[in-house]
């Protein structure tokens, strides 16, 4: 993956597949580190699956026997001397608080740090593909915070779908302006 935003797009699909109705994508930057968290309230993973989920030979896909989403993201973190961790609560055991939290920490100044890239495009593509999910996006930087909650947009839009072309365009511009506002 050439950009971490592509890993985010990929990993968030796992949350979609886990039937989450709320997915949070939280980015937090300091001068040294970038922390990416993807938090969902989907079905969660059982302990034995969670233990091997970073293994490329673990996958839920039926088309072949390797799954590289989490291993690639983990590698991207580890090559900057960072790391990736996952905690999960399966719905069978935690009927009221199930979900998965994935956290990856990157050292931004490391030579092998992959740039974040076009994260706005990742957010708009996720909303375009899954307009019924509540997407919460927040990017804290040293200069300020950029955020979006599709629930607020839905309150304005009523029965106009979030994935209407004009709305997706507006969301992209809205985020772009927030970033230029804080001078990111």
């Amino acid at each position, binding site marked *: *993956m050439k950009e971490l935003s592509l890993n985010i797009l990929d990993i968030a699909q796992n949350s979609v597949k886990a039937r989450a109705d709320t997915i949070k994508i939280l980015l937090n930057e300091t001068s040294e580190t970038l922390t990416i968290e993807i938090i969902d309230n989907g079905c969660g993973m059982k302990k034995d699956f969670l233990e091997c989920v970073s293994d490329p030979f673990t996958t839920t896909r039926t088309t072949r026997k390797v799954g590289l989403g989490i291993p690639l993201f983990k590698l991207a973190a580890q090559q900057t001397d960072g790391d990736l961790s996952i905690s999960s609560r399966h719905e069978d055991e935690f009927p009221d608080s199930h979900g998965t939290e994935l956290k990856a920490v990157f050292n931004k100044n490391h030579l092998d740090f992959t740039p974040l890239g076009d994260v706005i495009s990742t957010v708009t593509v996720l909303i375009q593909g899954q307009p019924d999910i509540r997407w919460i996006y927040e990017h804290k930087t040293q200069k300020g915070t950029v955020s979006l909650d599709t629930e607020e947009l839905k309150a304005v839009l009523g029965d106009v779908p979030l994935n209407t072309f004009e709305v997706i365009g*507006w969301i992209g511009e809205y985020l772009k302006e927030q970033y230029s506002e804080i001078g990111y």
Partner: protein
Amino acid sequence: MKSLAELAAIKEKMQNKVVLREGSSDIRVVVGMATCGIAAGARPVLNAFVEAVNGLELSDKVTVTQTGCIGICQYEPVVEIFEAGKEKVTYIKMTPEKAKEIAEKHLKGGNVVGEYTISNI
């Protein structure tokens, strides 16, 4: 700065169209968005289709959606086009430029762009 008021204006404008659109999509453009597709460049391909469909004013009859791994990772980005009463068309090794061309020739003009399909390998 973009405001929610502006979004409300979009809503007003769109509301009439939405009624028209429901259930009337004849063509479905499906972009593979699993790890393999994303790594190969599916994100800009999807955006190119979304923009082209709107630019060519095809939103009433074409919907652009996403799917997981289609199973032919070596040919990603892969795009499948489903049309009622017709055979599925699979386009492979897609780029935003090819997407634009396919939107014009296939989605608008009704002619499959043979050179980009899987049957042409």
